[in-house]
């Protein structure tokens, strides 16, 4: 039995390449509207300025909702097409025509991109609605909605692009929107610094994407999906393929906060909570997963890069989980959990055809339950005078029932309790991780073990978060103005989006998993993965996972719901202290990157001043001296002018005669 599975797995799996066709009309011609509508919304809000302050936020909501309606129409039209004709190209015209480099701008409509489009517009619209109430007292609410719309437009460009270059445009666009929104309250110095940190970390990733673009152009002479992902890599060497894969991974690491570029995500919580929910939980941070899954044919041809992807996912998964156990700031704990969950997705994406669909599956369910929990955290902050320290919460379940219940749905989903959404998606990833690759079972044991362990830790820290906030005794501080806290439920504009997302957290996973319909839906893009046997029977894996989850929840219950939670954080073990400061990631960055970088900058400035400027100034000075000499010849007297002409002439004549003889 064991030998057989090994044999099956070691068969070279033929890389699946979707065949695309140009769109012929119908509802699909609406696709450009997906991007145009939110872009228009952003333009209106930014250009109309203060005049639109009173109604601007509804324009934002409307733009996002309209995009969702278009997405739904396109989705229905797509469902009506036969399964093998669901990859469509919408041509927008020639974009770049420069000699050997020709590129058309166009949109790629297929199940993968449509999945993202639906997620972004649906969750995005909910969060827009939520933000109307959440940002009600902010004088810059209109600007906030303009940026949100800008983000939605950029994110849709990213997922709809039909070439890596257009994808890069969206990639930069979401980076910009993320920067603007993290630093939305930039009058606070720390928040502005957080925005800059996120931007710089993202730039490092962007560099990877730029290099990957260059490598693709050098290797294939094109950067559009049609050519690059054709699966025909001809003479391209394994080394080049690996390099492209690693550079794409670097890009994914920057955008998706994966090790070693993960440090910005915690600080990015400086942004308003709807931003954390939309950008830093549900959509933008998952762009890295999209990039890797979209580039599946490239990664399939570069096993080394795939292995690195899996390793990065595994490290981040554990890293985020450990950090999440120690954070007392509710949003930072959620951010650490996001990092860890994306680690799962990246790991799944690195597993190859067996994992691609599950990575996206988990991405979708995560988009719902994590956004729901972030909105819940925002609701708690709303009711608790913007307090974020969980040690000052406790016993809130009675005061904000809807928030409590919806958050509970998200909590049960993320820790993977059946039949909540997360169970279906995460369990699939753990199963896939236990499938041996290339006939070597050691990988299956290592990565399967890591995902299993991660599931246990996830159960612990998420339960800790949930119990510290909603259960146990009250540990409330006073408000900022000194009066007592009066926690209260949030207005309906905020609770309804939470309820809808909670419904997704509860049932979406079951619904999509029914008869494997989500995997089938994606198969026109990702192909049908051969079913392969994991090293352990599936029921054993599931039981083990659930056992670990129960252990994690019980430990958390005993420590944070039953016993007293100190208001002042205890000193803790060495590991706790390390986890509180993100396992010293910032210090490592400082020593390894920031300080050498600054030293390099200083020495470059010095060299620039002394060597370059010195040379330039020297040349300039001598030229001016020469000019002064020339000016003295310009006496203003005709006689001397005539003399100089004559002299010059005589010299010329003499030279000519001398040369001639």
């Amino acid at each position, binding site marked *: 039995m064991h030998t057989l599975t090994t044999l099956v797995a070691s068969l070279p799996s033929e890389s699946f390449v979707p065949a695309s066709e140009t769109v012929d009309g119908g509802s699909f011609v609406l696709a450009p509207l997906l991007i145009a509508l939110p872009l228009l919304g952003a333009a209106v809000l930014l250009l109309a300025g203060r005049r639109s302050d009173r109604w601007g936020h509804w324009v934002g909501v409307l733009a996002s909702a309209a995009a969702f309606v278009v997405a739904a129409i396109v989705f229905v039209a797509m469902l009506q097409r036969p399964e093998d004709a669901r990859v469509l190209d919408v041509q927008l015209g020639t974009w770049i025509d420069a000699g050997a480099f020709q590129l058309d701008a166009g949109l790629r409509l297929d199940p993968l991109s449509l999945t993202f489009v639906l997620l972004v517009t649906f969750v995005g619209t909910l969060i827009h609605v939520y933000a109307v109430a959440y940002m009600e007292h902010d004088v810059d609410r209109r600007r906030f909605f303009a940026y949100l719309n800008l983000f939605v437009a950029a994110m849709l460009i990213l997922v709809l692009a039909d070439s890596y270059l257009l994808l890069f445009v969206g990639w930069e666009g979401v980076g910009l929107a993320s920067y603007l929104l993290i630093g939305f309250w930039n009058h606070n110095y720390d928040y502005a610094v957080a925005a800059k940190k996120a931007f710089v970390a993202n730039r490092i990733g962007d560099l990877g994407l730029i290099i990957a673009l260059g490598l693709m152009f050098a290797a294939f002479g094109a950067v559009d999906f049609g050519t690059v992902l054709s699966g025909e890599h001809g003479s391209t060497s394994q080394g080049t393929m690996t390099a492209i894969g690693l550079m794409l991974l670097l890009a994914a690491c920057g955008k998706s906060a994966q090790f070693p570029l993960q440090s910005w995500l915690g600080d990015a919580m400086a942004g308003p909570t709807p931003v954390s929910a939309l950008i830093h939980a549900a959509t933008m941070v998952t762009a890295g997963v999209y990039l890797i899954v979209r580039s599946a044919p490239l990664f399939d041809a570069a096993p080394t890069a795939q292995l690195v992807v899996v390793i990065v996912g595994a490290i981040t998964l554990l890293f985020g989980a450990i950090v999440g156990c120690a954070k007392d700031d509710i949003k930072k704990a959620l951010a650490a959990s996001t990092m860890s969950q994306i680690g799962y997705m990246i790991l799944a994406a690195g597993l190859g055809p067996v994992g691609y669909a599950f990575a996206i599956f988990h991405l979708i369910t995560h988009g719902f339950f994590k956004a729901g929990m972030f909105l819940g955290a925002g609701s708690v902050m709303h009711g608790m005078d913007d307090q974020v320290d969980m040690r000052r919460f406790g016993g809130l379940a009675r005061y904000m029932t809807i928030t409590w219940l919806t958050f509970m749905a998200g909590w049960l989903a993320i820790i993977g309790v059946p039949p909540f959404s997360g169970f279906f998606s995460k369990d699939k990833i753990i199963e896939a991780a236990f499938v041996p690759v290339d006939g070597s079972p050691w990988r299956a044991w290592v990565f399967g073990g890591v995902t299993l362990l991660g599931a246990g830790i996830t159960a612990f820290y998420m339960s800790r978060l949930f119990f510290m906030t909603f259960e146990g005794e009250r540990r409330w501080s006073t408000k900022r103005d000194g009066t007592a806290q009066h926690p209260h439920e949030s207005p309906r504009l905020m609770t309804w989006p939470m309820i809808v997302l909670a419904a997704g957290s509860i049932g979406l996973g079951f619904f999509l998993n029914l008869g494997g319909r989500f995997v089938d839906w994606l198969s026109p893009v990702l192909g049908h993965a051969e079913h392969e046997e994991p090293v352990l029977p599936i029921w054993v894996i599931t039981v083990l996972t659930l056992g670990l989850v129960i252990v994690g929840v019980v430990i958390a219950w005993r420590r944070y719901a039953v016993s007293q939670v100190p208001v002042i954080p205890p000193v803790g073990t060495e590991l706790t202290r390390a986890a509180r400061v993100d396992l010293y990631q910032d210090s490592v960055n400082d020593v390894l990157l920031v300080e050498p970088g600054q030293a390099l900058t200083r020495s470059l400035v010095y060299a620039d001043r002394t060597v370059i400027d010195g040379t330039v100034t020297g040349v300039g000075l001598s030229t001016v001296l020469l*000019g002064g000499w020339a000016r003295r010849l310009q006496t203003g007297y005709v006689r001397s002018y005539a003399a100089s002409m004559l002299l010059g002439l005589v010299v*010329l004549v003499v030279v000519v005669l001398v040369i001639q003889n």
Partner: protein
Amino acid sequence: MTDFVAPDVDWAALSPVVIVLIAAVLGVLVEAFVPARVRRTVQLALALVALFGAIIAVAALWNGVEDTGGTVVLGGSLLVDGPTLVLQGTIALLALLALLIIADRTETGEDAFAPNAAAVPGSDYEELARRKGVRQTEIYPLVLFATGGMLIFPATGDLLTLFVALEVLSLPLYLLTGMARRRRLLSQEASMKYFLLGAFSSALLLFGIALVYGYSGSLRYSEIAEATQVPGGLDSLLLVGAVLILSGLLFKVGAVPFHTWTPDVYQGAPTPITGFMAACTKVAAFGALLRIVYTMLPGLAWDIDVVLWTVAILTMVVGTVAALVQTDMKRVLGYSSIAHAGFILTGIIALNESGITAVLFYLLVYGAATIGAFGIVWLVRERAGRADGSDASGPILGEATHLSQWAGLGRTHPLLALTFGLFLLSFAGIPLTAGFAGKFSVFSAAVEGGAWPLALIGVLASSVAVFFYVRIIVLMFFTEPAGVDDEATGVTALAPSAQGFALTGDTAVVVETRSSVTTTVVGTEGLAVVAIAVCAVVTVALGVFPSPVLDLIASVATFLP
């Protein structure tokens, strides 16, 4: 000896020249018979029609010349071939643009010329003429005569016609140079210098013609070229003659060491005339030089190369370096035009077909930017403060040519400063301006012709030149206007000629930046603005899409022998 045979004249082929010269003669008659009230209108209309007609005539001749390669007119005195037509078209177009600026008047009805050029500067008579509103409409026929000479100059087929054309184009320019409305002494001094040095160079040219005739027994380029193929005992006679002829032409283009007149004359002449002179004269003279080097002296290329190389290098270096230390806008542009003469020479030295195309193209783009730039210089004026110190309310004075007076112009007049910046970028040869396309084509022609050291020096000189062009842009956009609010010194409106003072070289001419004098842009009747706008459009269009024009020129870039 030989019987006189009346030459069979192909008048159609001569039409561009003839139209302009007839209009010039008519202009003289207009001076005599048309009442003073409408004289300017009639003259202007006549001149515009003539120049426009010349352009149309060139266009009408184009197809025939493209097919046949050109015709020999007047028994070989004039050659109407491809380069001739390109040059004549360029000259007529540039003259038309220059004429718009020459003819334009400020809001108060002042043109750029002295009300009565014969009046002694500062005299009562001058003041009377100024108050009566007298104006010298003779400038229009003078400009037309000069243009006529320029149209003939590059079309000449023998040395005698060359000399006549040179004089026809030069004499009106000497006169026009001395007719500035303001700083009249400076203007008259410049005129005198130009005339004396011009006469000197004409003498050199004539002497050269005599020597070459002595060697070859002919004045016709083609026959001289044949004679140079046959080895003779009097080679030095030919060589000295050739160098003398070249020096006469190099004087006109303002190449070192025959450039000394350029800055002084450019500064002293009425600014619209400076633009006309700097653009059109250079086109005509380079056209003639191109023809002589390519058709008369190819047999001597080996010996002449030394002269041209030396002159080109010196011109590029001196023009660039001297421009760095100037403080007067018109002198900066003057030296810059010297440097450009050097760049164009590299295209001539290339001695190949792409060299011809490159030079012709360069002349067009350089001419457009030059006319536009000098047009803007004419618009930027000093404005006197009131005696009580309140600023920017007094009468408008002369041009604000000191560089410091241009500080901050980008804030007060952004569009104008932007346009001037465009011309400067084109001079500097920044991509997407016509100047880049021009420089690129001459340098690549030079490299193709084996003259890569020249191209290298040209590129280096261009990069140094960027400094002083960009310095002006920085001055306009990023520098605060200096000393606007200083204590008023009580200087009120000055008589037009009171600012004329002796010109004794670069250092002597320091325009005092009076603290009560501010810089402004004068409003005009609009002709100049049209011309400047056209120049700007040409500069951008030829920068972005140079190839259609380059292809058009290349299709006819062959000289008749």
